[in-house]
Every structure is written in C-alpha cells, then in structure tokens.
C-alpha cells in the first residue's frame, strides 16, 4: 500500500519508503532498481553416468532482500537507514534525502528466483553508481545491485581506485561493456553469469565470516593471537578473495613435467629456458613429490592423496573380490581394455578431487594432452602407429646437446606418448562419469607428429584445441597441461626409419640430456603460447603459469614432506574422516601405507601476468603436491580456512589439525618436525627459524635460517 511511515524506514512487504523527516533543504532522490544475481544449480556428482548431471546457471532476481541506503558506508543496513524489501520481481523503490551507497541484504528469508536462499549474502552498489544513474533530480535513479556491482565496490576498496576505474577494470576482465557490469543479470552472457556465480559464492562466504564473528584481519595482522574486534562486512568481502593468503586467480595453467630432481634442472645447461623463467618468476625451492611412480603423484596433484596406489596400473584395475565396491561404472570400457586385478584399487570412487570440487562450485577444468591418437579414448594410452611419422628433431652444434638428429629419419608415433596415467581426470570414477569428462579432455598442439596426425584425423578433429581455447578464452579455471612423454621429459622408446629402409634408428632426443633439452623447449613453447594469448594480456584477468614436475628422483633421506611423515612408522591406516555422528575414524583403504611415500624435490616455478606482482620471490618453505592442492582450494574458494575438515583428503592435515587429532594419527606421534610434516598453503607465511637447516637443499649446501624476504610467490600485488 501507498502510505509509508516517515518514522520507520523499513516496511515489511512494502515497496515504498521515504526517509524521515520529509523533504527539507536537501534535494530528495528516489532510487529504483532490482537486486539480481544468479541461480546456480550444482551438478550431481555421482559414480554412475546415469546419476550424474551437469550444473545449470540462470539469471535471477531476489525477492524480500532488504535494500538500504548505507549512509555510514559500513556494509550493514543499520537501524535508521532508509530501507525497503524487494518485491517478487526483485524490484525496489527507495527514497531518501541524498544519495549514497546501496546495500542489499539477502537473508535466508529471501528468495532467489523463488527458491529459498541458504546462505546470507550482502550485495552492494557504490555511491558513485547511484549518482551516475541519477539522470534528473525528479526522475528516480535506476540502479541494479548485483554480485558484479558488489565486485566493483570491493575492487574500489581493495585497490583504492575510483568507481570509474573499478567498473572499467571489471568490464575489461570480463570482456563486456561497463554498462553490462552495472546492469541486472537478465540477458547476461554465460561468462558474466558464471562470474556472478563465483562472486556470489565469495560474498556468501564473506557473510558467513561476519556472522560467526571471525576476528578482523587487521587485528590479526597486528597480533596473530588477537580475539577481536570482529571482521566487518567490507573486510570480509576483501578476505574472501584472499583465503590463507592465496589470492583468487581466474585461470591457472599447470605444466606438469616428469621425473626430474631439482639437481637435474636447476642451473642445468640443458634447461636454460626453464631456468630463465624460474629466475624471472617466483620459485618454491623445497617442493616435494608425494610418491613413486607417476600415478600416485598425479593423484596427489588432483586430490591430495594417492589412496594407497604405488604403481602405474590403470583405472580399470582393482583387488579381486571387490567388484561390488570398486567395479567400473563408466561402461563400456575402451576396446581392448578389461577389468584387471591389482592389490590396490585404482578405480577411485567417492573421493574428493579438484575436478569435481571445481564443477560443484560453478567452475571448470581442462586437461590438455599432446600427441593424442585422433579419436582415441582418453582412458587408454596412446597407441603406436608406424604409419604416422614425423621428421627427427635436428639440433645445431651451438645448442647444449650439440649437433644431434638424423636428417631424413622418419620418427614413428610411439605407444603411450599420451599416457593415461598422467591424466588425473581418468582416475576418478565420478569424474569419468561426469557429463563434462569428454568435453574437458582436450588436445594440445605443438608436437612432433601434429601434421601427421592431422592428415589421418577424422573430420572435425582439432589437433590443437588448446590453441583455439587460448584464443577464445574457453579455458578452465584449472588447466593441467600434459606434454607427451618425450616433451614432458619422461622418455619413451622412439625410433624411426630412413626412406627405403626398414631398419629402425633411435630418435635424437627422447632420452638422456637431450630429453631435458627437448622438454625445456616445449615448456618454453607452451609458456610463450599462453603469454601471447588474450587471456594473459588482459591485465585484469589474473592468470598464472606453473612449471612443475610430478616427481623427483630421491629415494632416501627426507624425500617427502607436508602431508606424509617419512619418519613415522608405515601404518596401514587410511586418512582421517569425520563421520555423520561427528566421530572421527580412519578410512579403510586396502594397501594404504602412509609414511612411506615421496620421491624427493623438483623445481616449481610460478609466473603470473600481473605487472604489480612481486617477482624474483624465493620461498624455501617445504611444500608438496598436497600443499599445492590446499593452495588451489584456497585460490578457488573450495574450502573454509577456519575448518580444516573442509579441505579434501590429506590437504586437511595442517599442523593445527594434526595436533587436534593426534590420537588418531599415530604416524605423526613421533614427528621430529611438526611443521615439516604438516600441510600448509604455499603462502610463504612461515618464517624459517634462524639456525634451521633445510632438510633437502640444492645442490649440496642446505639453506640455514629464513629466506631473504617473506614475499608471497602467488601474490598479485
């Protein structure tokens, strides 16, 4: 109804309001608009393909959201601030004596496209947005309040820049007009809707931090043991983009290479390009693998555990007699592949992993693989084909490997150039069964046999989907780049023949030092390709490239850390799980022998496209694949830092978590170095004590004491 009290600002169920007192000296303004966002229907993650379903996103409008003029700009609709509830169509009409920032408090009594809201969230519209919308004093200003306008306000706070800059920066990041940023989400592109989903998740988490009275980060910065004051909404919205010191990135590319210890790469004349990138970017100099051989490491990179796997048997292998529990559900199996027996289950079912976690939150992943047989099954290794040949790579005398290579040698496509054991998405039943499994496994070009593969490929086959995706921007948040087993430094038997001869001759560069040099060049090719892309050159997209190895080569000493306790007794106890009734127990996993893993350290470098980001950072704190997974969970807001249990698998094993659960973690009971054995994000927060001797230094002189500085290798500014 029309008549509005001038005393009380908020009127339940009404859409009309005026500020008290009535019109006086200041010119009153009316503001109308909508509170809009997105309705995200999570995917159904299931082992059965039939039970799986993709996520859905739709533009949405919020009903019964409390909209107010946030006169004191504190991120809260305080008593006395003019407010109104949105109507069923998300609209509001608010009148006040002057303009200012707007808030929309979306509570659990609000409706999102008619659906119940489960987590409170506060959306904002900057005061300058309201002013800019006021076309005439007598015409109500039209203002949309959305996750995108909230992000504009947050960027203004974070970067201390104007509304115009913040608005344009976000528009540039999303490749849309500034008007799109300030509009409601109806008619928005899929990219904008996706961003709205991700922002909504961050801002909902911010509200959660406020509601549980987390301590203000400013107070914690001054005193890590501070117990107050409580975090404000504006602080929380900033913190939600920087969990555990790991900033939000839009896209990360992991170039995963194979089997080289730090000593084989660092300073090697055969890896000049990788070394140059390491020095130009940021390095993590105590980065540990988690197992041996590839598959347990690839599992750990994808999920922070290896589930007891200690070999490279394929996903279709599991213990005899466990068919009911471990049977393959994504039938039919590829031709020539049958279920096989193995003492350890390789068909990982019902376990958390980064792929499912990303899709569950509206994000995407890709695995790009090189030298894949056209049309072949991603679950199966590439097959040898003597009819698919390419010239041997030739090197000149001035290159570190010297003048090697055989002119005229036609090198055959070898088997397992594409290795399923290196593809983390293959290991998990619920990932293979997901609707996006096939779509998210894509080809990557730049390989020796690209032209030959194109010649025999079926119509429509794209030998370099990665190149197209870089150009279009259709990459995932997490992109794992898998060079073939020559370009990744693993090595396979690679032979060729000379014209007119059937005698085979080894190719020049898929073994020995030449293999490193070949991998170095391919890594350089990938990095240059990414750095030439529109994504990388969009200054407001936050993009990182990681150069890493799945494992080193050390077999003794401190060859693992951070989630594994190499000094503990190998116990056949599975990882800790919290049961429905709140009790804690060890999961039963056959052959699970934690404490006997690891394969030493490898180089780990990070490049990012942010000009203001610190460069030349050297972080020598100990990290592992498990640390990387925790880092990625923070980066993509997949877990809650205040609750270690929310982190997947062994990435929850922080020092605090281990201490709290030590009675159930006997392998840590005798830990000689609790920090070294525990998991942490790669945030360079820990200051290595003076006198502490690095456990696995390179090359032989171990670092003593702290790093030169504590800058964060992932920081954006």
């Amino acid at each position, binding site marked *: *109804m*029309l*008549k*509005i*009290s*001038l005393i009380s600002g908020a009127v339940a169920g009404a*859409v*009309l*309001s*005026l500020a008290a007192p*009535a*019109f006086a000296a200041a*010119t*009153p303004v*009316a503001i*109308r608009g909508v509170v809009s966002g997105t309705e995200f229907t999570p995917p159904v993650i299931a082992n059965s393909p039939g039970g799986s379903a993709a996520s859905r996103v739709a533009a949405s409008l919020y009903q019964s959201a409390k909209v107010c003029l946030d006169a004191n700009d504190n991120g809260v609709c305080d008593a006395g601030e003019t407010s109104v509830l949105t109507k069923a169509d998300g609209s509001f*009409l608010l*009148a006040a004596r002057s303009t200012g920032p707007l808030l929309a408090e979306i509570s659990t009594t609000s409706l999102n496209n008619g659906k119940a809201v489960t987590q409170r969230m506060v959306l904002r519209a900057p005061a300058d947005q309201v002013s800019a919308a006021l*076309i*005439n*004093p*007598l*015409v*109500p200003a039209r203002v949309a309040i959305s996750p995108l306008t909230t992000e504009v306000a947050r960027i203004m706070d974070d970067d201390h820049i104007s509304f115009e800059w913040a608005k344009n920066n976000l528009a540039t990041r999303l490749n849309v007009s500034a008007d799109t940023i300030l509009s409601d989400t109806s008619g928005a592109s899929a990219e904008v809707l996706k961003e709205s989903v991700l922002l909504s998740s961050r801002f909902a988490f911010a509200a959660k931090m406020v509601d549980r009275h987390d301590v203000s980060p400013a107070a914690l910065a001054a005193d890590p043991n501070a117990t107050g004051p409580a975090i404000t909404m504006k602080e929380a919205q900033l913190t939600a983009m920087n969990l555990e010191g790991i900033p939000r990135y839009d896209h990360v590319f992991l170039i995963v290479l194979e089997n080289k210890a730090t000593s084989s790469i660092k300073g090697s004349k055969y890896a000049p390009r990788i070394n140059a990138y390491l020095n130009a970017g940021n390095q993590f100099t105590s980065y540990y693998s988690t197992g041996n051989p590839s598959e347990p490491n690839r599992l750990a990179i994808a999920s922070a555990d290896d589930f007891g796997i200690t070999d490279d048997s394929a996903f279709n292998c599991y213990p005899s007699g466990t068919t009911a529990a471990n049977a393959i559900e994504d039938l039919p199996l590829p031709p020539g592949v049958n279920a096989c027996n193995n003492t350890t289950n390789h068909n990982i079912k019902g376990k958390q992993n980064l792929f499912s976690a990303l899709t569950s939150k509206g994000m995407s992943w890709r695995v790009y693989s090189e030298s894949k047989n056209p049309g072949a099954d991603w679950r199966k290794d590439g097959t040898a084909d003597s009819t698919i040949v390419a010239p041997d790579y030739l090197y000149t005398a001035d290159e570190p490997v010297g003048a090697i290579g055989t002119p005229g040698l036609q090198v055959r496509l070898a088997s397992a150039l594409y290795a399923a054991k290196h593809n983390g998405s293959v290991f998990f039943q619920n990932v293979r069964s997901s609707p996006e499994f096939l779509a998210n496994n894509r080809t990557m070009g730049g390989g020796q046999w690209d032209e030959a593969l194109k010649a025999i490929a079926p119509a429509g086959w794209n030998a370099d989907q990665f190149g197209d995706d870089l150009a279009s921007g259709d990459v995932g948040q997490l992109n794992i780049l898998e060079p073939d087993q020559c370009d990744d430094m693993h090595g396979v038997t690679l032979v060729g023949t000379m014209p007119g001869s059937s005698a085979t001759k080894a190719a020049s560069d898929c073994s020995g030092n030449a293999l490193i040099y070949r991998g170095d060049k391919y890594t350089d090719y990938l990095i240059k390709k990414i750095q030439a892309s529109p994504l990388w050159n969009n200054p407001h997209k936050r993009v990182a490239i990681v150069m890493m190895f799945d494992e080193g080569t050390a077999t003794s000493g401190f060859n693992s850390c951070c989630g594994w306790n190499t000094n503990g007794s190998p116990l056949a106890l599975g990882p800790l799980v919290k049961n429905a009734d709140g009790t804690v127990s060890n999961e039963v996993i056959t052959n699970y022998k934690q404490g006997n893993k690891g394969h030493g350290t490898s180089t780990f470098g990070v490049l990012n496209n942010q000009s203001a980001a610190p460069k030349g950072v050297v972080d020598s704190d100990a990290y592992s694949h498990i640390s990387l997974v925790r880092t990625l969970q923070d980066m993509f807001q997949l877990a809650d830092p205040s609750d270690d249990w929310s982190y997947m698998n062994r990435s929850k094993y922080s020092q605090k978590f281990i201490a709290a659960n030590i009675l159930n973690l006997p392998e840590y009971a005798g830990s000689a170095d609790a920090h070294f054995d525990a998991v942490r994000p790669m945030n360079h927060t820990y200051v290595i004590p003076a006198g502490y001797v690095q456990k696995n230094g390179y090359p032989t002189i171990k670092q003593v004491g702290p790093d030169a500085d504590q800058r964060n290798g992932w920081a954006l500014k």
Partner: protein
Amino acid sequence: MKKIISAALLLAAFASAHAETFNFSYTFTDGPAVTGSLTGHLVGDLVEGVSNVHINFNGTDFAGALSGASWSAVTHDWSSAAGAVVSTNAAKNNFIFADANPQHNAADVSAQFFFVNSSDALIGNQAYAVNWNNGDIAFDQPTRNATWSLVAAPVPEPASAAMLLAGLALVGTFAHRRRQA
C-alpha cells in the same frame, strides 16, 4: 476583411468560452492512484492550453499552483517552454506537474506527478508520483496506459442551465426592486 477578422474574433471568443475542464486518473501497479483535473481544449486527442491543474495523489491534494513541463529527448531534461503534453491517448502523454518549476527549480519540488512515454531511452515509459510532504510515492515502468483516463468534466444539462438563468434573473429582479424601494 473586417468581416473575416470579426468572424475570427467571434470564433476565438467562442473557443475561449468553450475551454473545458477535464478529469483524469491513473492507477499505479501497487495500487495508489492519481486523480485530478485541468483546463484546456481538446484538439484531436491532445489537450491544448493546459492550465488550472489540480492533482490528488493517494487521497492528498498537491498544494499550491502546479507547473507543467514535458521531457525533451533532445536535452534530456524537462522543458517548461514546451509545456505538458496531455492526451486522452496515454501513449502520447509526456508531462510532469510539480509544485515548483521542474526545469528551473527542481530542488524546490516537493510534490510531483509525471507520466512520460518518450523515445528517449534514458527515461522511456515511466509514471512516477511522489509527495515528499507525506511520504507517498509510486512508480511504474512501463506505464500502465490502460489505467489512464482523461475525460471532459460533466457540464450542466440545458434545462438545468435554464433554471439557473431563471434563478439568476429572479435574484436580479429582487435586487433591483430593493434598490428602487
């Protein structure tokens, strides 16, 4: 020539004599209504010479004399000079009536009603009424044209007019006799 001028003057006098009062009303989506009246003469479906505007919004009269204007798609502002465009056809409405000049004294406006169907994308089709004195406010976009009504106010029947004239004559006669007495 004199005859033509005389005829024109006669016609003008006739037209002036026939300026009508119109009643109008509009109902917002949320229920509140605007009612009112104005004086002018209808040319086609447009009211010309709009004056003497009275508005009641949600049961409360706007106080004081009301100024009219229309929205200019060129200047993107109210234009007092162009005046209010009021029509029996809601789609042609382009007016604002306010208790201060909407173009030059917007800061002094405390009660207003506008109904604009404009080609200017900045404003488009909007209806908005507000009375800052009592807190009444309502807004529509798009306008609800079907609820707009503008009709001539009822005039007395001929017989009623005759009786009125007779009554006046009678009053005049009595007054004349009193003065003679």
